[in-house]
């Protein structure tokens, strides 16, 4: 089998988990695992990658100090041409998604995004991904090619403990293009609100099922009674019904409360990633196939507008007793 090239992702001085996850997953597919590390003075990440890779290609250049998808794309084009890998793995992250489709177009190699499982058929990967917000798995047949590109969903593979000591090959920056048409300016940190939900021990999460902001009081009443804070799915924050610092998920916060009561939340992967670490997860949703029931401990399949007021009543009774 040909080599597997794995792009290391890092930001603001930290290696991102998906990098080590992909190296661990690649090792199980067979073939030589080659980590590609583009950065400025990130020798520590090269050492980290070497623990899970057979070889680390390390390009140390100011061009890669902050992520620029064009610089990354041009570097990968050159490294793919030079190394002829059979497979290229990139994180299906805000960075990876901003670059991989352009890399696939410019190299002419096929791409499947947001991959959640890989089987190999000789040199050809057979990726699985999801459709309809995780409600179906789709088995994909890629066009025959010399190199296949996949973007891998975070947490698809567990990150293994370091077991290798791959050779670190310092490589000159292969990119000489003028990239001034797109320039990194700065990172802007998220706003801080009145409640830090990452510190809350009880959370009631509200999703799209609440339908309108005028319905929020029914969950607010329950939350208040439980002594819980309100959290929200992306849809509720996008609609402006709750502030963005209440958003749980990949683009929001990661929470680990004792209780996460998900009300009208379907449980798309993006949300679940942020709350699956809760001790007890309860879901109330009218769709029996909602993915949230796959990770909840307890579920009620019913109309939240009927169940939540009843639950408030029952909790009141218990508290009064």
């Amino acid at each position, binding site marked *: 089998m040909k080599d597997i090239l794995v792009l290391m992702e890092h930001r603001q001085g930290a290696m991102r988990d998906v990098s080590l996850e992909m190296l661990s997953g690649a090792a199980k597919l067979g073939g030589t695992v080659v980590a590609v590390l583009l950065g400025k003075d990130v020798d520590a990440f090269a050492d980290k990658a070497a623990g899970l890779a057979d070889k680390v290609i390390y390009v140390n250049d100011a061009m890669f100090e902050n992520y620029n998808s064009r610089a990354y794309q041009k570097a990968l084009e050159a490294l793919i041409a030079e190394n002829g890998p059979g497979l290229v793995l990139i994180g299906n992250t805000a960075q990876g998604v901003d670059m991989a489709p352009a890399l696939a177009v410019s190299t002419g190699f096929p791409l499947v995004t947001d991959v959640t499982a890989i089987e190999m058929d000789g040199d050809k990967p057979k990726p699985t991904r999801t459709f309809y917000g995780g409600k179906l798995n789709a088995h994909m047949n890629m066009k025959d090619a010399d190199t296949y590109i996949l973007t891998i969903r975070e947490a698809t593979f567990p990150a293994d403990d370091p077991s290798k000591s791959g050779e670190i090959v310092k490589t000159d920056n292969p990119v000489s293009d003028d990239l001034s048409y797109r320039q990194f300016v700065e990172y802007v940190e998220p706003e801080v609100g009145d409640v830090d939900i990452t510190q809350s021990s009880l959370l009631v999460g509200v999703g799209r099922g609440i339908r309108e902001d005028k319905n929020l009081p029914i969950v607010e009443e329950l939350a208040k009674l*439980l002594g819980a804070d309100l959290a929200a799915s992306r849809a509720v924050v996008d609609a402006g019904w709750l502030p963005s610092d209440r958003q749980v998920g990949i683009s929001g916060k990661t929470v680990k409360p004792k209780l996460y009561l998900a009300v009208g939340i379907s449980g798309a992967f993006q949300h679940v990633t942020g709350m699956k670490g809760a001790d007890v997860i309860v879901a109330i949703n009218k769709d029996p196939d909602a993915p949230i029931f796959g990770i909840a401990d307890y*579920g009620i399949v019913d109309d939240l507008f009927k169940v939540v007021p009843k*639950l408030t009543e*029952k909790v009141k009774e218990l508290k009064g007793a």
Partner: protein
Amino acid sequence: MNMVVCVKRVPDTSESEVHIDGSGKGIDTSRLSFGINECDNYAVEEAIQKKEALGGNVTVISLGDKQSDEVIRMALAKGGDDAIRLEDEAFAGSDAVAVAKALAAAVKDVEWDIVFTGALTDDDGYAAVPVALGEILGVPFATYVKKLEVMDDGKKVKVGRELEGGLMEMVEMTTPCVLGIQTGINEPRYASFKGIKQAARKEITIKSASDLGLDASDCGEAGSWAALEQFTPPVVGEMAEILEGEPDETAGKLAGILKEKGLV
């Protein structure tokens, strides 16, 4: 400042059960409602807001059959000026790159400074169209855009890309460019009654693959990176313990469990 906004009609499956059809490659849509893809709705709003602020023209483009006219007309009703619909049997089975090739061919005949698309679609979720389209057109691109400021008389844009954990990456790019819009960038308006009436009379130009100068090898499965082989239901882990009964009963059971666990 002229703009193109690409929209897709998709089934709303956010709160509905999704059943695989007999072919194993499609879903039973008989009980699903359809509408504009969520990110695309924000893309339409962003294009119209920029037109209102800076002047110019907004062209709405959609790849789909006649039923897509309803989402096109809604975008026109909100402030879009012209519309093109790409329809051809040859487009069946297109993945993100095949869609991007068709869109790239379609915008060649349109004057534009920015092409807006949704960052991803609610159905296949490839999230690859804006970036692939930008590369095919040979212009700068950015996706997961949640902030947009037009600078220097439209010669440049400053965009905020949404990263993990709510972090925003600010980048500056020259125009023309392609932007993949993320939900939450604005507050999409509702169309006015007057707008809807006017939109009903607007012409939607239909273009086939050959009108666009596309070869069969660029379209549908042949023009795609990958073909869908089969759908399967997702493998779920250990399912939740489902509390059965009427709301009064299930709420009572749940309250009891919370009490037992010391959470009440």
